[in-house]
């Protein structure tokens, strides 16, 4: 799993590459929390390169969402692969997160 960030307007775009499972969700959690601690309140998680997510990974998404809501910030997800989208749908997470098809849509 790799996380690369760059700033675009009000948003920090974080691109996830690889898989998030029980072996590395901690890593993902630390990295995304680092971004928030630097003062970023509006984050777009670009999931184009995410090819697997376990329930542990979903939990980190939830924690991030809760944290940003507490800071009155925003978490947008975009560019999900169909398999990932299916997991979000099945688990009901699609209704918790704001999910966009493209990064441009997520930026608006």
């Amino acid at each position: 799993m790799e996380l690369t960030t760059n700033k675009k307007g009000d948003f920090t775009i974080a691109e996830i590459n690889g898989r998030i499972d029980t072996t590395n969700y901690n890593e993902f959690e630390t990295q995304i929390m680092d971004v928030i601690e630097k003062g970023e309140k509006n984050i777009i998680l670009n999931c184009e390169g995410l090819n697997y997510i376990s329930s542990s990974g979903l939990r980190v998404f939830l924690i991030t969402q809760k944290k940003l809501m507490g800071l009155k910030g925003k978490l947008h997800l975009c560019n999900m692969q169909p398999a990932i989208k299916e997991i979000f749908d099945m688990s009901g997470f699609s209704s918790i997160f704001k999910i966009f098809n493209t990064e441009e849509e997520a930026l608006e």
Partner: protein
Amino acid sequence: MEIISKKSLASRIVFYVAAFCVLLFLISLSVFYFFSKKSIEEKTIENALEITQNTVLKTEQVLISSEKILNNYRWLIEKNIAYADSMEAYTRRILQMNPEIIGCAIAFKPDFFPEKGYYFSPFTYRNKDLLVSTQLGNEEYDYFVMDWYQIPATLEKPYWSEPYYDTGGGNALMTTYSMPFYSSNNGDKELAGIITIDLSLEWFTDIVSSVKILETGYASVISRNGTFVTHPNTDIIMNQTIFSFAAEMQSPGLRQIGRNMQAGKTGFEDVVVNGRDLIVSYKPLLTSNWTLAVVFSRDEMYAPLRQISLVLIFIIVIGMALMVFIVKKIVEQQIAPLKCFARSSIEIAEGNFNTELPDIKTEDEMKELHNAFVHMQTDLKKYIKNLKETTSAKEKIESELRIAREIQMGMIPKIFPPFPDTPEIDLYAMLEPAKEVGGDLYDFFMIDDTHLCYAIGDVSGKGVPASLFMAVTRTLLRSVAPKQRSTSEIVNNLNNSLAIGNESSMFVTFFIGIINLKTGEMNYTNAGHNPPIIIHADNKSEFFEITQDIPIGLFENYDYTEKTRVLSENDRLFLYTDGITEAENWDEELYSDERLIKCIRAINSLDPTEIVMKVARDVVVHVNDCQQSDDLTMMSIIYKGSKK
């Protein structure tokens, strides 16, 4: 090397030291032998030449003095040649004055003194101490044809005869020196006769016989025609020539030497006679054309050297034996602690870390080894102590986890078939945690005589945290469900209880259903769980529709939806957690929804146990020994219809 390497270190060291010493000694001995041999050879040859030279000088001196005597008397005889009667007096005088001369004759040519007759030859010889004078010539002894007369007369030169045995006087070995003398007739010199002296060769033999060189070396004189005049072997004196001897001994070298001698050459040569290596030094006696030879054995020349070498070798062998013994003792003494160290290390390996080490008093490599051993002992003791502590701590945790697993498994119903008295329904379930304890759960129970409640859930994450959350969920379910007929109410209740103070944002995907066994009517709620599969009586199978409800434990007061459907006779339900569909093989390929439903369709069985087992087997085939990464949970229910 094979044999040596099996021996002790001491033996090996001794072997190498000894081998080196032997090599050194061999080289030294060879060099010593080579140079000594050369030196001895030079000395011996020098000595032999000197002896030859000296002996020749000594013998020649006698012969030359004889020649001189005769020369002087010739002059006297020639001067007084007219006085025939004084001739006998001369012969007596010569013998009187020269004790080495044993006979003297003045032999005139035939009819020189007509008054004296055809023969006239006064002759005086020694008979013991007396001098006896007589006339030599007569009819029987016609001296004119004798060698001693004829040769010098013909050659008009002095002549030394070949040695001979005197038959008349005492059987002694003799030689005769003959010299012509002349008369003067009107100024013309004319041969008048031959004057001779007989010389005993005893003195000559004495000189030559006194020569000794090495053990058996000797000197010998060989006459002009090769006859042995002197020789240590008296049998061959005058009986053999060097040529006959060479033929007898089959020694061509000796024959060649004989020829050289006849040619009056000086030489120093090696020759093999009778199998012996001999060295011959020879030199002619110029007066008589005889040859003196000094003969010695080459073997004897080297004998002292051989003797010294043998003594040396003997000393070396004794010395080597002593050295081997002493070196072995020293090395054994020096390395004795090694055996103790070996014993100590075996004891240490057997676990006795306090074993006693050998006491080393020297400050050398042994001391270093000793210190290293002490260091190893203390380190090992420390290490083993730590290991024991960590092992016991680990064992404690493991045993606690084992107990936790037993507790967790005890919370799940595991008696199948669970409701043997309820013919409308049959059910089978299994749960296989990835670690000792897991976050999956299933449960089923009769709410009353006609309602079966069943549930399956999956806590986010794994291990101890997940198992605690699972235990709480299961406990809440059992306390909430019996009072409720609505699945959404049950889930709402669970959600509210779990969401309060859920700091770590753990959640449970959860599916719960309640079946009315009389009617087949089933109401259910899906809180973010994988949709179950329904298998119809005709084996047509499909997933339940996806609801948008979120897992429980996330947001308080979330309102979950409830759905209903009616089961027909022999409809089957298959519930599972994502551990099944997301089971991975080595290539990280998921088992997947597609493969699951394909497998279910292929099973086509009415037995829930068979359905669960066959899916489990198919998952195992897919995973192919890859490590199980998530808890595996399955439940299968068959509704057999209402039995009136």
